[in-house]
């Protein structure tokens, strides 16, 4: 069954050409011409993936992403005409998983989509245990279940996006080991040497707000200055 993909783009030519090209790549493509339209389409059609242009009409791409992220963990790729630091970081912080800048080639988008849909831990050979206890706090332990794709704090499930979950799995697979931003980009996003390392930073920030007891003083996902990140189970 083909993956359902929602393209949110207000420029008719781009949207149409993009639909054709993505259908050629085997996706089942739905279109949305505005932000409101996109939010409705996500609620009704529950797509597997989303490609969002940042500059839409009254409801812009950031608002769409924030709205969709309330209830959905699907991978979202932002398409932006502006590659300015501010726009990209804002989109990532709103909840986007990755971005491409216009003009792009469709194979760039499909490569990103494939990477984001890859199952957590699918690429790594080592056999991870069923459950990993990340925080042994007796009152509310933080438990990662890689096979089921869930993280629980006590009895409640922590709502991670697919990408945040994969990032956490990648770090948890080798506790205490320092991963460079470059390495995480390659493992989680499958970006090459010239990938944007800010993607990692923003995702780590987002992940911390969900799994750390105090996100401003992280105890679990630690920044190693000048080197990268490491996960310290407690």
């Amino acid at each position, binding site marked *: 069954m083909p993956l359902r993909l929602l393209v949110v783009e207000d420029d008719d030519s781009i949207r149409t050409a993009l639909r*054709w090209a993505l259908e050629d790549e085997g996706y089942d493509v739905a279109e949305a011409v505005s932000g409101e339209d996109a939010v409705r389409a996500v609620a009704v059609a529950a797509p597997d993936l989303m490609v969002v242009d940042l500059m839409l009409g009254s409801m812009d791409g950031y608002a769409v992403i924030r709205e969709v992220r309330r209830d959905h963990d699907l991978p979202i790729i932002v398409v932006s005409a502006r*590659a300015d630091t501010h726009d990209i970081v804002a989109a990532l912080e709103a909840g986007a998983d990755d971005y491409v800048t216009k003009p792009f080639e469709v194979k760039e988008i499909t490569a990103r989509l494939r990477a984001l849909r890859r199952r957590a831990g699918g690429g790594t050979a080592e056999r991870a245990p069923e459950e990993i206890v990340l925080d042994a706090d007796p009152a509310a332990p933080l438990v990662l279940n890689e096979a089921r794709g869930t993280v629980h704090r006590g009895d409640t499930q922590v709502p991670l996006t697919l990408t945040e979950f994969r990032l956490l799995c990648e770090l948890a697979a080798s506790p205490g080991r320092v991963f460079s931003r470059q390495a995480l980009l390659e493992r989680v996003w499958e970006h090459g*040497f010239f990938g944007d390392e800010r993607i990692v930073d923003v995702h780590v920030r987002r992940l911390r707000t969900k799994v750390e007891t105090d996100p401003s003083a992280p105890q679990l996902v630690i920044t190693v200055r000048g080197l990268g990140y490491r996960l310290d189970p407690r």
Partner: protein
Amino acid sequence: MRLALGPRGLRARIVLGFAAVTLLVSVVLVTATFLLARSYLLGQREASLTRQAFADANVLNSRLATAGTDVGDLLAELVPSGGADVVLRSGDDWYSSTLDVGARDMPPDLQDIVAGGAAGTVRIDGPDGPALVVGVPLRAVGVEFYGVGRLTELRQVLATLSAVLAASAVAATAAGAGFGVWASRRAVQPLEQVAGAATRIAGGELATRLPPTDDPDLVAIVAGFNSMVDALAARIERDARFVGDVSHELRSPLTSLVTSVEVLGSRRAELSPRAGQALTLVEGELRRFRRMLDDLLQLARLDGDATAGSGLPVSMTALAREVLAVTGRPGELLEGDPDGETLVRADKNSLERAVRNLLDNADRHAGGARRVTVQRREDAVVLAVDDAGPGVPLEDRERIFERFARGAGAARRSLPGAGLGLAIVAETAARHGGAAWVADGPDGGARFCLSLPAGTP
């Protein structure tokens, strides 16, 4: 020794002006003071000497008239008052109260006056210095009286006075020059501030402004300067934004073009041979168009974003290897130092574009790169791209790094390239505190170099 007579600075001119004016004023004042003091003192002295001479003459006259005594004896008795010497003439005989003066010192002019029956005074330069001679005829007794009063003391007083006045003139001039230094510093200080601000602005700190001032003389300068910088900054920003906006506007149609052509490309088999050829042509031109647009945007970004030069540590060797791999060039082209020693702090994507542009430049103008070397040279990491082309003439070596400059033959050979590639290399280098240049390559071609400051991990 020659005096340096070149153009003087404002400060030197102000100091010299102040010194000259004080010198002139003090010379005039001192001279006037001296002349007045001298004539007053001389007048006083002469008056007292004359008075005294007449008094002595009177005494002598009455003595000679009553007693009829001998002139010589009388002269011995006469105690000259006030330090004046007395010389008497009786007929052809001369008598003198002291050996220091005598008939020989009496000026003939005065002798003539006195002989004519009138009194007179004459200033002489005696053996002991200047003196005043007062001649009085004592006709009743047939004697001529000459009183000789010395002016030596007065001369010493005047010498001291002139020394004091000269010293004060010198002191006043020095004080004037000192005041000039102070005044010039005050006058030049705002200019130095302006110069400093202008230098900072030229260095890219467009937010630099002169601090507001209450000084009514400076308000206009400060306001004028600041509004000039405002206008300049606005202009630069507008230009950069224009390039950026135009490029962004072009992105949307280009995106649908690229995507549509990709859709066509995946259906190439359905096209007629001619249509397929046309599609290939369109694909090539689209790639070129994309490159140009990317170059323009990159330049706009380098122009507009002051922080484009800062970045994370990246190994130049690893980056060069990646660029070769990504662009499908053989990795054997690269000869470099071990990775660790070629770290620089850079924006990876800007640096990638710069290196890629150097390689593309070699493709376009010199049949491709022959060798890429990355070397650590003291505090810099230098990436060099050697080619086997004709090299770059000396006179073109700066020009080719300017925007839209092309090699001499580029216009004739219909090779792609908007002439922005090397400008981006130069701008990227500048933004990272480095440099870009071209030299002769070891194999006779050109060697394009990109040098960045070495970074720490």
